[in-house]
């Protein structure tokens, strides 16, 4: 059974999340409380067993202490992660077309694409192509944002 360096931290975070669910149990109807209570108990048991397993492996020196993400890439990945989050959160306000073009250009530059034509043309073509497909074939109106009234 494999154990990893961050398993205890993951278990603690999960235990805290479960605690939030426990605090919400009181506000549910008693009849609808039984099933989630059982699931929460089972989850805690699994957390305890995972921690015991980690401890046994730690005693044996069987913990994979190496980070599975290369250290010099963590910040790089984190920044990209935050950029996606910003893209998601601003989608409604700025709108699909302008934001996706900006995101596409940024993403290609950030991921070290070297071809200028690709960096400029690809996001524009993809954005409009997707907009065309979703609006005309899938009948989904993507967020207009700043272009409300124009589109």
């Amino acid at each position, binding site marked *: *059974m*494999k154990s*990893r360096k*961050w*398993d205890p931290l*993951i278990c603690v975070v*999960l235990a805290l999340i*479960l605690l939030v*669910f426990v605090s*919400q149990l009181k506000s*549910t*109807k008693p*009849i*609808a409380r039984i*099933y*989630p209570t059982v*699931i*929460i108990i089972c*989850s805690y048991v*699994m*957390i305890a*067993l*995972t921690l015991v*397993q980690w401890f046994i492996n730690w005693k044996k020196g069987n913990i994979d202490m190496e980070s*599975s*993400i*290369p250290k*010099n*890439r963590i910040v*790089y*990945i984190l920044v990209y*992660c935050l950029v*996606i*989050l910003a*893209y*998601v*959160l601003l*989608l409604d306000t700025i709108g*699909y077309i302008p934001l*996706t073009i900006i*995101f*596409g250009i940024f*993403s*290609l530059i950030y*991921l*070290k*694409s*070297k071809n200028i034509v*690709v960096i400029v043309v*690809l996001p524009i073509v993809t*954005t409009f192509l*997707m907009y065309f*497909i*979703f609006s005309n*074939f*899938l*009948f*989904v*109106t*993507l967020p207009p944002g700043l272009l409300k009234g124009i589109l």
Partner: protein
Amino acid sequence: MSNILIGFVNVFTPFNILIMFAGLLAGIIFGALPGFSATMGVAVFVPFSYALDPETALLLLSGVYCGGVYGGSIPAILLGIPGTPASAPTAMEGRALTRRGESGHALALCTAASSFGGVMSALALLFLAPVLAIIALRVGPPEQIMIAVFGLSVVSMLSEGNMLKGLLVGFVSLLLATIGQDPQVGFPRFTFGNLNLYAGVSLVPILIGIFSLPEVFSMLEEEGEAFLEVASTGKMYLKLEDFTKNQFNLIRSTLLGIGIGIVPAAGPDIAAFLAYNEAKKASTHKEEFGSGSIEGILASEAANNAVTGGSLIPLLALGIPGSAPAAIFLGAMYIHGLRPGSQLFTSNADIVYTLLVGFVVINILMFFMGWFFCKFAKFVLVIPKSILATMIVILATVGSFAINKSIFDVLQMYIAGVIGYIMIKNDYPVSPVALALLLGGMLETSISQTAVMYPNNIFEMFSRPYTIVFSILVILSFAWPFISKKMKKTSSKAEA
């Protein structure tokens, strides 16, 4: 028989044929790109299926699924890097053949074996799923409890070397499935005052996130744009003797693939390795394995593609997905208002038989599409990761939004993607998340219905024969890791 004929009529409309080709092409591209998978392809294409008729939508996803499993073998041969884990045995043999200048032969073999395995599994699906659906007629709430527990237990147990982590993920995901209105009194539960959560967590966006974004983040782990050296496809050809000498190998591997496909969560990678090992054991030319064995390629490819049809058998009949793509498939069925089980084969017979017949046709078309694609594979395999990552993020975002036209869904997709990446990096399996979210609701509803059926003692449900059968399966699935460990020890002792 009349249902099968209806299926034929529905499949052979120009639009459906076009959709099957489009799905296959998209699936092959997803499978062929190293790091991408059939699961990711199906996840990304669910939103595109939303506006289509249910049967057309299922044909599109079937095309992506089958194409994705097959596509993984193309980089395995041309680059020596398996596009999907299921193509790892093919990579061992295919790369050796490529070095000898026989890449065209290797690709042709792999295309033919994949198509053969796929067609056979599609036929098994066509004839076995309705039979299993008859059993599903006798399935009541008590049996449904055991089916759900069985599905979840197998997924967790098969989390190779991480049984505890698999179970932990399963239970926490079951808890997430309880968010929303409870099935008994319809009172909101764990919604934290957020109206968006009243209908529960959004299944498909979460599946899109958990199966696509982690791949994007994984791509960022390597520095710079790595341009891979792709071997030339060469002349594609098949020899009759490749098949006359390997007929038993092909049949055995296909049957193994179908069997593995039926077992929940035992996906194409397990089937490919198992069939490859069996082929090696049975071969009279064991020394060729690892240095370009045709038997190895045929076994691995027939088996991994045979999983596709096999995995849909328990899905359509009982609602248990046999693999991760099948789990997303189930999510898509829910979106289209289709519920697996016996009723699917009666009230939605036209849709389900279109899918079953379409699955056979897709696997036949795969041979031609695969043959055609291999000639141009060199150009697809060199698409830089910067373009792939950007496209996937945009597709996942827009796709998640399209389902309910909700930014909250996109946010759920994003959170699921980040959590999925952390899980994968720490050896927590992600498949139980899909299964638990899909089966959680059914499990809770069945438990409450069973409690009403047996108000004095719920354990009376074990007096029902089918409950006992499914209970035995649950016990077996829990015991399997220990049995397999014991078997491995015994066989290694015997070899020593």
